């Protein structure tokens, strides 16, 4: 197994604020991976959506997100449009040598940058009575603030493809189990060493959060862990949590949901680390 030197990769640039720039064959790899995931979604006739980057705070509040994950949130901030306020900002020193900006009065913040791709679906289908299971997919830019960023492995801004099922408990469980089997075969076929491991979401102050305790007692998250430390994707069973929060029903009851999530930058890391940066050495399906 190789140990890729990410900073020396051709066609790659790391930005110290936790973001990656791709071009050339690496960008092609990014698109091929996404196409692979999208084809898996198409196999179950999932409908594709393209969502915007901001999520209304009032929608995230329904999920208790601000209580559970305050450390991850990124807010889009704008200046108050009052002319005097703008003049004050425009005429000020504005920022420190390290780039930290001094804001004057800001507008009320009513949005959050996407923390995960699938939240949009529950907002999209809220107050709906489902006649059958729904299969959906999207790729979105996601934003999670972290204490430390690592190129391709832990980023402030990263890309996530998700395939989602909304339906009865059995429909969702069968969707997740089908995907786990399919993914196990895929990893075996391309010889990428992945372990499926139970995990919990990264709650703030977990020991005091009953949601964390509940996830520990009844695991709902299975991660695809590469090389013993890097989760390149996950299978998540949300029970009827989103169905209840957004009043989506199926057979007269709160709908259940589940998703399969793929972190594209982490897949790129795992593949390059495993097979090297030369395209001829990559698995056939990604050439």
């Amino acid at each position, binding site marked *: 197994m190789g140990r890729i030197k990410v900073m020396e990769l051709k066609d790659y640039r790391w930005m110290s604020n936790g973001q990656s720039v791709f071009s050339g064959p690496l960008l092609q790899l990014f698109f091929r991976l996404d196409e692979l995931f999208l084809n898996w979604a198409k196999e179950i006739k999932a409908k594709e959506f393209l969502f915007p980057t901001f999520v209304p705070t009032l929608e995230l509040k329904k999920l208790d997100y601000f209580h559970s994950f305050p450390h991850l949130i990124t807010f889009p901030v704008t200046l108050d449009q009052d002319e005097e306020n703008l003049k004050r900002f425009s005429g000020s020193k504005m920022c420190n040598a390290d780039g930290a900006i001094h804001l004057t009065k800001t507008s009320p913040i009513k949005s959050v940058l996407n923390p995960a791709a699938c939240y949009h679906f529950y907002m999209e289908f809220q107050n709906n009575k489902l006649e059958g299971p729904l299969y959906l997919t999207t790729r979105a830019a996601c934003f999670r603030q972290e204490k430390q960023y690592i190129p391709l492995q832990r980023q402030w801004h990263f890309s996530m493809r998700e395939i989602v099922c909304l339906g009865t408990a059995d429909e969702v469980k069968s969707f997740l189990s089908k995907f786990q089997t399919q993914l196990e075969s895929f990893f075996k076929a391309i010889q990428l060493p992945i372990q499926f491991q139970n995990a919990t979401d990264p709650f703030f102050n977990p020991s005091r959060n009953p949601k964390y305790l509940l996830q520990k007692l*009844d695991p709902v998250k299975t991660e695809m862990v590469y090389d013993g430390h890097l989760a390149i994707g996950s299978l998540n069973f949300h029970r009827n949590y989103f169905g209840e929060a957004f009043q989506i029903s199926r057979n007269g009851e709160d709908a259940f949901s589940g998703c399969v999530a793929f972190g594209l930058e982490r897949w790129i890391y795992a593949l390059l680390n495993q097979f090297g940066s030369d395209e001829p050495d990559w698995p056939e399906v990604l050439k």
Partner: protein
Amino acid sequence: MNEQEVKLSLRKWIIEKNGKIQSEDLKPDTPIIEQRIISSLQIMDLILFLEKLRGNAIDVENLKPGVFRTIDIIYSNFFKGNPNGKN
């Protein structure tokens, strides 16, 4: 308390806490967390209730997955032979 009494008290407590579930829908093998009959906010209350019912503390730090899955499983983990809920 014998097995029947424990399971009956537990059942009564869950039905009361949930407030919506019909008595006949809560069976000894109904998955109470998976079906969100008990919510995340009620899980600590459930632990306190079990501690009171059995008369000693539960080691929350070392609880293993699945120990609260159903009424039957709760009984066998916390009242019968294996009082610490460790698998």
